[in-house]
């Protein structure tokens, strides 16, 4: 087979790219995928949150300042559409987040950011929920079924990007977060199921109890879940 000079030049170019810090980094890849999201859906902004070792969603990337603050606000308050999408592993929509009674602790701050309609979908790594993809508009909007389907479809692309990026870039805090979520999601899910059955609560409340127990005991949520499964008790319920 004849040697193709163009292909070699391309390979050399890719090798040069690999040496650049932001060439194909996990962070850069996720940033690109949320940037494209804005172009594709004609929305005001988009962001991606990823769960940390306490299974608390953390800001990963966002397209703009309000998008970043939006993630921080929900993270600090422990409530909001993005968090709910992750906890319930289901799409969450709101016509106007700045007046939605489901999240009273964050509505005022959301209003001050100029954020109104929001749509959040869970994202997965190898089938395990690890975060949420969120889009927002600066005006109230009733999301129709085609828009919801489209964002869920795009979440598939985001997941493919996350898998490819984690495989390619295994270093860094974000990669550690994703790896932790992957390693401990199974015991966490089992712990949530245990609390749902034991306490008669829904998935979101069971997850929040587990999360609060982890934060209260300053332990990782995976460890707390494993203890719960071993002993039947949360740390705060110890004798």
């Amino acid at each position, binding site marked *: 087979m004849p040697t193709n000079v163009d292909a070699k030049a391309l390979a050399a170019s*890719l090798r040069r*790219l690999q040496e650049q810090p932001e060439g194909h980094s996990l962070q850069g890849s996720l940033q690109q995928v949320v940037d494209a999201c804005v172009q594709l859906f004609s929305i005001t902004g988009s962001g991606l949150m990823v769960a940390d070792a306490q299974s608390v969603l953390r800001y990963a990337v966002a397209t703009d300042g309000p998008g970043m603050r939006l993630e921080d606000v929900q993270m600090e308050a422990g409530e909001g559409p993005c968090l709910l999408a992750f906890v319930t592993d289901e799409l969450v929509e709101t016509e106007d987040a700045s007046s939605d009674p489901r999240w009273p602790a964050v509505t005022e701050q959301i209003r001050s950011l100029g954020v109104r309609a929001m749509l959040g979908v869970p994202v997965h790594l190898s089938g395990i929920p690890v975060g949420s993809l969120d889009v927002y508009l600066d005006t109230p909007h009733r999301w129709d079924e085609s828009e919801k389907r489209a964002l869920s479809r*795009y979440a598939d692309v985001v997941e493919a*990007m996350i898998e490819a990026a984690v495989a390619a870039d295994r270093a860094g805090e974000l990669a550690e977060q994703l790896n932790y979520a992957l390693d401990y999601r199974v015991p966490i899910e089992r712990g949530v199921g245990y609390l749902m059955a034991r306490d008669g609560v829904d998935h979101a409340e069971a997850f929040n109890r587990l999360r609060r127990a982890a934060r209260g005991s300053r332990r990782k949520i995976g460890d707390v879940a494993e203890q719960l499964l071993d002993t039947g008790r949360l740390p705060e319920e110890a004798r």
Partner: protein
Amino acid sequence: MPVDERALAESISTLTGILEAMAGPPVQPISAHLSVTVTAAADLFGVDSVGVLLLDGDGELRAVASSTALAAALEKAQQQVGVGPGHDAQARRGSVLVEDLTAVPEYAPLLAAIEPLTARAVLSAPIWVDSEVVGNLNLIRTDVHRWTPVEARSATAYAEVVGRLLGLAAQSLRQGPIMERVVPTGHAEITDVGT
């Protein structure tokens, strides 16, 4: 959605220049990722079919992925006759918007190679990896359609995502075997890489 896994594997290998060193590691993750991405594109853009052409080891465009037989037929024809929107996008390093394939005289050989011809409007967006155009993403409709600037910009953004995925795959393959736990299950391994 059918993915020509062998063609894909060869394209990835060419991109990275690691064909000789690979010794056949599984590359099904990028195959699955590309499949998801192409299928999603058809839904997101509301088109009838989507295909991806990538450069092979000889620098020739090869049909790598197609969401339906419609895209597969158009891509194979482009590969055979060497003309078409994908080739033009490659040459121009920019998007090519075709309202009606039958209205472009230069595409006569392409149309003659497709029987029956059902593809009419095509938007071909270049796929970049670093500073190189390594192929193109093709959105295909069966009706005559004037592509809007919004569609063109969206296709460009989406093709950039595809390029990033390919770049990440190349990076992973250079680093060695891809982590097993991020390898989706249920996808056949490709064992004939480079054969």
